[in-house]
């Protein structure tokens, strides 16, 4: 076929906006490749990822792409001209093809609608099911309207882009996990929770695997950035949702994989998870997790295992293979201890950390506490060049100080303290003494590493969310009241001292003293004049 196949209701001059988060699509692609058998014909609806398309076609599968934007479709037609790919442009509503072995709608269902027709959630599911052969596989990503990202998004429900406007008119959208599963009506269905959202999910955790073991992996999907203001610190919200056993129900999105037709004979597949940090594509290493007996989780790096480099940062995928160090994140324990004003725990852990740390990869959010030991969660990171433990500890404390401030966490240090001053206090808690210059050096190192990793520098110390703003206002109000009270107290003290001085000058003792010392002081003055 020479041109894009126009199937009706296409958007003539439309290209989907690119994701505004770091991270690559490799995690979703690898997860999907791992859990589906592609067969001969695959339909990719509303999602055209080069990695996935090349992986499918190289395995001998014919790929059909359905893209609503004609601009996107024409680009795809050119890009995949030499592959077994057919490009269709139009809405899911009018898509006439059927009989696919596998249908993948991995970009969410909103991108299958056009202004001509906005399908309700059940109608979109029905239309997707029509395209697959009986017994075929359906994998669909569904955005959760009650996900943590929506709960924490101050713009939630506000239509911001031109694309949000037509999409917002769907007669009925999915209401929750149970509704999604009931409407999809797939057999042998596997449910995965996606973080941080439909766009570039970097943590994909199957329902049965959802536990605090993955809390660190999941929360690393977020970093506070001015582009994504939140009414509360998402990492805290997610962590607490997982602790409450609601990690899947409150996930920003889900991936469902299942079949149409009767259930298969095979039992339930063992639970899996797939994740990576949201980093630049050249450093991406997708990791697959599977249960390792009853003892814990085993991790396996997928894809190319050769070492990766970006700037000073190196990554060795080989080091990821093996059992996962399970335990609470050091950063979480420290945040909790700060909130409880438990400086003993902070002191013990930071001192232990300062003696233990040897590598730049060991930031507090990448260290787990296993009994009395500290272990790396993701041991693949390295930094070229010499860095002292003092600099590394300062950097770790700097990051903790930023987290405490931008997340408006309760802590034992004075309200209104600067990040720099708080860092110095935290380092002192670890038993080290550093200067403001040392903090600046650590900040430069942190910025350099963030740049090489392709992630935003978390330097936002101003509260971004409403909760953080309220907490900060409350703390600053206390600080201001205290400062005013202090000034008043000092004023009163000065006045009291003045009164005492005046009383003193009037006393007999003072006057007798003056008579005695008077001639001597007159003589001193006379000599000075001379």
């Amino acid at each position: 076929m020479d041109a894009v196949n126009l199937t009706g209701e296409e958007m003539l001059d439309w290209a989907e906006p690119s994701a505004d988060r770091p991270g690559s699509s490799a995690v979703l692609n690898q997860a999907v490749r791992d859990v589906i058998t592609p067969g001969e014909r695959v339909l990719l609806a509303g999602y055209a990822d080069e990695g996935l398309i090349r992986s499918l076609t190289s395995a001998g599968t014919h790929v059909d792409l359905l893209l609503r934007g004609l601009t996107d479709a024409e680009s795809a037609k050119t890009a995949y001209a030499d592959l077994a790919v057919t490009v269709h442009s139009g809405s899911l509503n009018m898509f006439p093809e059927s009989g696919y072995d596998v249908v993948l709608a991995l970009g969410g269902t909103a991108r299958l609608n056009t202004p001509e027709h906005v399908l309700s959630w059940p109608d979109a599911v029905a239309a997707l099911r029509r395209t697959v052969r009986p017994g075929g596989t359906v994998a669909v990503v569904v955005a959760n309207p009650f996900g943590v990202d929506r709960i924490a998004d101050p713009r939630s429900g506000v239509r911001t882009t031109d694309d949000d406007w037509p999409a917002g008119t769907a007669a009925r959208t999915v209401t929750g996990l149970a509704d999604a599963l009931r409407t999809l009506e797939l057999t042998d269905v596997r449910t995965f929770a996606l973080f941080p959202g439909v766009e570039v999910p970097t943590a994909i955790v199957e329902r049965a695997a959802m536990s605090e073991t993955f809390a660190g992996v999941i929360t690393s999907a977020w970093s506070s950035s001015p582009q994504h203001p939140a009414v509360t610190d998402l990492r805290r919200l997610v962590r607490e949702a997982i602790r409450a056993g609601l990690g899947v129900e409150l996930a920003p999105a889900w991936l469902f994989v299942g079949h149409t037709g009767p259930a298969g004979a095979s039992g339930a597949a063992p639970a899996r998870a797939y994740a990576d940090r949201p980093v630049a594509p050249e450093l991406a290493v997708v990791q697959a997790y599977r249960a390792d007996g009853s003892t814990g989780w085993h991790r396996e790096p997928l894809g190319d295992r050769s070492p990766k480099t970006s700037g000073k940062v190196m990554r060795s995928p080989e080091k990821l293979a093996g059992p996962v160090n399970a335990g609470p994140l050091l950063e979480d324990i420290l945040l909790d201890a700060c909130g409880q004003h438990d400086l003993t725990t902070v002191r013990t852990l930071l001192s232990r950390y300062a003696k233990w740390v040897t590598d730049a990869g060991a930031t507090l959010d990448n260290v787990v506490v296993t009994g009395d030991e500290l272990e790396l969660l993701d041991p693949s990171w390295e930094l070229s060049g010499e860095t002292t433990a003092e600099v590394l500890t300062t950097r770790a404390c700097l990051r903790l100080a930023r987290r405490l401030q931008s997340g408006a966490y309760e802590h034992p240090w004075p309200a209104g303290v600067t990040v720099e001053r708080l860092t110095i206090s935290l380092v002192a808690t670890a038993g080290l003494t550093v200067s403001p210059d040392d903090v600046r050096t650590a900040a430069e190192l942190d910025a350099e590493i963030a740049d090489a990793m392709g992630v935003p520098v978390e330097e936002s110390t101003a509260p971004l969310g409403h909760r953080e703003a309220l907490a900060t206002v409350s703390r600053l109000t206390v600080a201001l009241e205290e400062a005013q009270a202090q000034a008043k107290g000092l004023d009163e003290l000065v006045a009291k001292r003045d009164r005492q001085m005046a009383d003193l000058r009037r006393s007999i003792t003072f006057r007798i003293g003056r008579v005695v010392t008077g001639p001597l002081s007159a003589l001193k003055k006379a000599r000075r004049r001379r």
Partner: protein
Amino acid sequence: MHPQNHWYGHSQFLAEYAGLGPDRVPRIDGYLQHGWNVHNGFGIRTPLLPAVTKLVWSARPMRRGWRYGDRNYRIIGSPWAYLLQVAPAAPVERSGTIFYPFHGIPTQSVTGDHAKLAREVRETEEGPLTAALYWLEYEQPAIRRAYEQAGFRVICHGYRLGGFDRGSNAMLRNQLMELRRHRRVVSNRLATAVLYGASVGCDVGIYGDEMLLADEHPIYGGNARIRRTWPQLHATFVDREEAAAVADEELGLSAILSPAELADACGWSRPEPGETGPELPHQRTDRRD
């Protein structure tokens, strides 16, 4: 607000339905969609002031407009839908076919072979034939002749502007009367007249050379896009229910507003019962268009 609001006597039907009394052409506080449209309800070359309310026939033009950054839409249904309310049908025996060749506008002409088209319709249809030409084509004797020679009765419903001043908001009323007398409505493209026909019970046929429109803006995607979007309407004999369903959606037939809500949408105040109502400003024009 805009002279287009008065085309085809649209504002008059709306005013009559809203209870402002006949023969009033009040100014509408907004832009009224004047024809079936596959963009945002208005011509891409029609200058629209930002933030002014756009009164459209159905949800599709609203959603398309949103996607291009337009806001402030209000769906009121088509003036045709209101005409059907104020001009109830008298029982008339239907016969034959009324044919609407795709028409141009003063700034965009249409090129095609009318004689060939007339022959094709003649060969396909049974019974008496009527060719309803747009005034632009009607004023060209060669085109009229092409249909006359093929045995058509050739008519023109009227002009789209100037009707009020000559006491002829008659164009749409004429069209309604003609459509109600015919069994089938046929055109070489899906266009407003076909939907009007389907809305009053005509069977629909769309076939024949679709002709060429000069200087068509790419934002519409051409007639090919219309064929892809409404494939069910592109056949010699279209399923009546399918045609009626499209007409219902596109003309907003089953979603018309109450007189009070329509008056509110148009920015009119309705007279109290027994009162003749305030003198409303109205638009006059003698331009024939």
